């Protein structure tokens, strides 16, 4: 494929508030999601699938008794490990379902029921009897688990880092902060539950698998399934025209996708629809591992850090490794000559953890930014000043110069807008009627990621119109809208002159909508293709002329350290009597390069802030250590912030452009809003009450002393 260096684009519509391209379709209910496609899209006479799950955390399936289910009207088939189609490759035990009798976690798929209606499938599943042999299990993350050192942590980082002499530095430090911080299991819970429609066709011996999937990346799904099914990726077509959110949980295919595909293998071409339930999502579609962060900060009396240590214990599963990079932001955030980070994993009999918005940064920065607040208190230094004092000149981890590190600008701008100067530094000093009032701040950071492996196609349609195609998925973020803006500027036309086609593996390859890398990666590919198109075909190309191109590697990535930064400010009120917590104000300032569409960007920042608030105060998946599964498995018991919890939430960004990172001048914005937010809220509750809570979520009972807080 043609490689093209993507040069900075002439900015016209980038930066302009542009309505969502698919807004009307969504609010009028015309957008079709993964199991809503009908005959027009080739989904003819579908069967419905229901999952049967294990009810032990570890053991074996000794028998699946299907008679009762099969005699239920409408039930067509029951598939288990004895009769499921065989896979060619079973290394990925999360996806290799029904290939043997082993049970690795509670809620694992142990049988599938196909029926003519959804109701019959569900009742059929209830009628399947599964005999299981039970082995003792270990499912609880505690400080006492046996742990091991993974070879790397996600996505491909060092497990441990060491610089200088940490122990000597702590021995000499004037001030030491030494605490353990905990974050709970969290489930992504996008509004649209995971769902897949799949069917197989055979074309003269050439097998083809077609899917609509609720995914963050269509090519990723095809690539992970193909070798397991003995297919070439080109034999699988995956589309995801509309996706109702993912937050990372749709960043890769989970077991239910394979369930739909295997079931469809048995139906002689009839499509199979699988809509995962909310409760099943708590077992099968990914979650954030709980983390235990032991942090030590050693500083001089005036708050200059000399040593930082971050030892993480977290959890993976026995069936597949997932190593959250929790200490990664500690490696680059603040200056200190001596530092140590460690990641240790407990391998538990639980479902595989997976990606959740800002994996690593979210739990890691909670721990570090609360620890920094504790250091500020210990040293009697303003927390913003403390962070300024510890600004590094170069990236402490790599030694590379930062491309555009504007943490201090974010902190200062935020302080001004939030009214930080008026703050009384004393904790537990402000009372308003029943309520203790406090404010807190935390830093945010997120790496700027741009993925290789993207390409785009530009075709002239005549009359100054262009078709632009790339397989990227818009999971509700507004990708369709901003990619049209980028294509328009790259071709020097209005967005209305762009026909954008996305979310289909038949289109040029696109990487996942994740890691805050989507717009940077896909946008750069579109710019490369547009610039190449102009080079090949000039300014007034004949209709039908087209160019597909991929961006050439960018040497700047080796010379510079690319990160985004932010500062989050929170006001918290804690009720003296009841311990109830309210956050009347939450404010973030971000340095993220150029903002492409202020409307969709704002919604990402606000969404991130709300999700961070939610993590700070509410979200908590309770895994029952005896049973092995999460028992707070619906949205009535797994709380996310409700409207009444989200009061004055606002975000601003610094006017800037990062032309070294992308030709649009942008970095990613999807994740940074959640980073640091829970810490800002935690710090504000401390400032309000004088009580330090180091374990998320912070809840009413943390403040229910005998005589109130």
């Amino acid at each position, binding site marked *: 494929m043609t490689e093209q260096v993507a040069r900075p684009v002439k900015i016209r519509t980038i930066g302009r508030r542009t309505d969502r391209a698919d807004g009307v379709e969504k609010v009028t209910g015309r957008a079709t999601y993964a199991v809503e496609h009908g005959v027009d899209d080739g989904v003819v006479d579908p069967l419905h699938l229901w999952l049967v799950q294990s009810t032990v955390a570890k053991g074996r399936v000794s028998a699946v008794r299907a008679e009762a289910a099969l005699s239920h009207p409408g039930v067509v088939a029951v598939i288990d490990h004895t009769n499921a189609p065989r896979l060619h490759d079973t290394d990925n035990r999360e996806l290799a379902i029904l290939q043997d009798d082993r049970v690795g976690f509670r809620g694992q798929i142990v049988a599938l029921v196909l029926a003519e209606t959804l109701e019959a499938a569900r009742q059929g599943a*209830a009628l399947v009897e599964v005999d299981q042999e039970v082995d003792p299990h270990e499912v609880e993350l505690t400080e006492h688990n046996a742990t091991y050192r993974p070879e790397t942590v996600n996505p491909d980082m060092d497990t441990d880092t060491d610089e200088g002499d940490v122990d000597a530095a702590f021995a000499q430090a004037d001030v030491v902060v030494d605490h353990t911080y905990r974050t709970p299991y969290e489930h992504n819970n996008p509004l649209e539950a995971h769902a897949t429609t799949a069917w197989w066709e055979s074309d003269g011996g050439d097998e083809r698998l077609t899917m609509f999937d609720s995914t963050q990346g269509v090519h990723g799904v095809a690539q992970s399934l193909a070798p397991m099914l003995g297919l070439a990726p080109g034999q699988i077509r995956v589309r995801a025209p509309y996706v109702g959110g993912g937050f990372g949980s749709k960043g890769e295919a989970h077991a239910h996708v394979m369930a739909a595909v295997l079931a469809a293998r048995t139906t002689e071409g009839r499509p199979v629809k699988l809509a995962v339930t909310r409760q099943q999502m708590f077992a099968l579609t990914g979650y954030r591992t709980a983390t235990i962060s032991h942090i030590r900060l050693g500083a001089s009396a005036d708050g200059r850090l000399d040593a930082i240590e971050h030892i993480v214990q977290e959890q993976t599963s026995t069936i597949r490794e997932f190593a959250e990079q929790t200490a990664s932001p500690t490696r680059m955030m603040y200056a200190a000559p001596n530092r140590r980070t460690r990641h240790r994993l407990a391998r538990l009999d639980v479902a595989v953890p997976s990606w959740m918005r800002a994996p690593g940064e979210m739990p890691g920065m909670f721990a570090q930014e609360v620890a920094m607040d504790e250091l500020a208190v210990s040293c009697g230094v303003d927390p913003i000043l403390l962070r300024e004092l510890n600004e590094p000149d170069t990236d402490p981890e790599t030694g590379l110069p930062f491309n555009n590190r504007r943490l201090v600008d974010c902190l200062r701008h935020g302080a001004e807008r939030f009214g930080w100067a008026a703050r009384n530094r004393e904790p537990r000093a402000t009372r308003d009627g029943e309520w203790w009032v406090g404010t807190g701040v935390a830093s945010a950071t997120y790496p700027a990621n741009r993925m290789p492996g993207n390409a785009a196609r530009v075709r002239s349609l005549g009359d100054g119109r262009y078709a632009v195609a790339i397989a990227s998925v818009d999971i509700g973020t507004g990708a369709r809208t901003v990619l049209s803006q980028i294509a328009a500027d790259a071709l020097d036309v209005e967005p209305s002159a762009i026909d954008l086609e996305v979310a289909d593996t038949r289109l040029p390859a696109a990487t996942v909508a994740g890691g805050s890398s989507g717009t940077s990666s896909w946008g750069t590919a579109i710019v490369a293709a547009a610039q190449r198109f102009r080079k090949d075909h000039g300014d007034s190309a004949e209709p039908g002329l087209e160019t597909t191109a991929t961006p050439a590697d960018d040497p700047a990535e080796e010379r510079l350290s690319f990160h985004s930064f932010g500062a989050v400010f929170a006001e918290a009120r804690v009720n003296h*009597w*009841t311990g109830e917590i*309210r956050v009347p104000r939450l404010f973030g300032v971000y340095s993220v390069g150029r903002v492409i569409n202020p409307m969709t960007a704002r919604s990402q920042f606000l969404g991130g802030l709300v999700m961070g608030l939610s993590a700070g105060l509410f979200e908590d998946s*309770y895994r029952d250590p*005896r049973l092995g599964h999460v*028992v707070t498995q619906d949205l009535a*018991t797994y709380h996310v912030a409700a409207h009444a919890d989200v009061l004055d939430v606002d975000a601003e960004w610094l006017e800037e452009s990062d032309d070294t990172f992308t030709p649009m001048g942008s970095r990613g914005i999807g994740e940074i809003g959640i980073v640091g937010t829970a810490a800002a809220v935690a710090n504000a509750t401390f400032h309000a009450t004088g009580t330090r809570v180091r374990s998320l979520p912070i809840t009413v009972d943390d403040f229910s002393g005998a005589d*109130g807080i």
Partner: protein
Amino acid sequence: MKDLTYLTADTADSAVELFAATPGAQFLGGGTNLIDHLKLGVATPDALVDISRIPLDRVEEYQDAIGSGLRIGSNVRNSDLAAHPVVRASFPAVSRALLAGASGQIRNQATTGGNLLQRTRCVYFQDVTTPCNKREPGTGCSALEGYGRHNAVLGASDACVATHPSDLAVALAALDASVVVLGPEGERRIALDDLHRLPDDDPSIDTILEPGELITSVELPRTAVAAQSTYRKVRDRASFAFALVSVAAALQVEGGRVSDVRIAWGGVAHKPWRARRAEDWLRGRAITEQTIRAAVAEELTAARTNAQSVYKVPMLTNTTTLALLRLAEEVAQ
């Protein structure tokens, strides 16, 4: 979901008859609780008798030998009852309790009768893959040593530590409401405080209603103290969450001393918990932070907690103190 027969009733009498004539029947009100249970396999009736179209949807003043009050039809929707001007003026605790519950959408759908008979939100009760004595007698209680944040601290047994989730029921218990029920044997009245039972060794039965008995209305006696009532609910988020603890309270003060007081608690027991010992202790005393705390302590001597539910004791004490102190301020004005 199991196949079932769907029947509708136009009158209370026909509902009771249909129920009696249909094995495995269950009444369907607004369905906000029961439909979930059908889908989850928690409820497995053979037939539903839909009572939501019976015109028991009025709030009326009544006058009888004992006194006057409001009669609330069992099909009055939660949102209509909360907004009713007489309820707001004369029984503020009822209105506040309703508005502290669920969400606007659910309150529009939920009925008065259904609200009182909604079942526990115990996570194990709702998960048919786990042991639960309430759902499947004899299988054990998963909550006893499991997820215990919502466990009962009063009146529980080793068989069940579930709490009753209704906010409305707590306010009604405080204000001495009763339910009017119609069954095959005719009509009877049950004090709300007697409607729900403690789990003892059979938690599968929530109330003293006989199978097939239909709640037709709730009677709310008009009293001076009811007009000075409030409801305070503490929950994990600002709205749309069940109570960790809640307090319905009503207060009358004469000459600086408590002449009448009502206290009922939610989130602490298998039923709305009328705190009569605390009430007795307060009656005749001045209302101060100390007296309220002492009164609550009196009631809570029987509290049993574990590591996960122990927070409820101070939270309940503080919240009750707050509610009564605020009421005392209002009464004084």
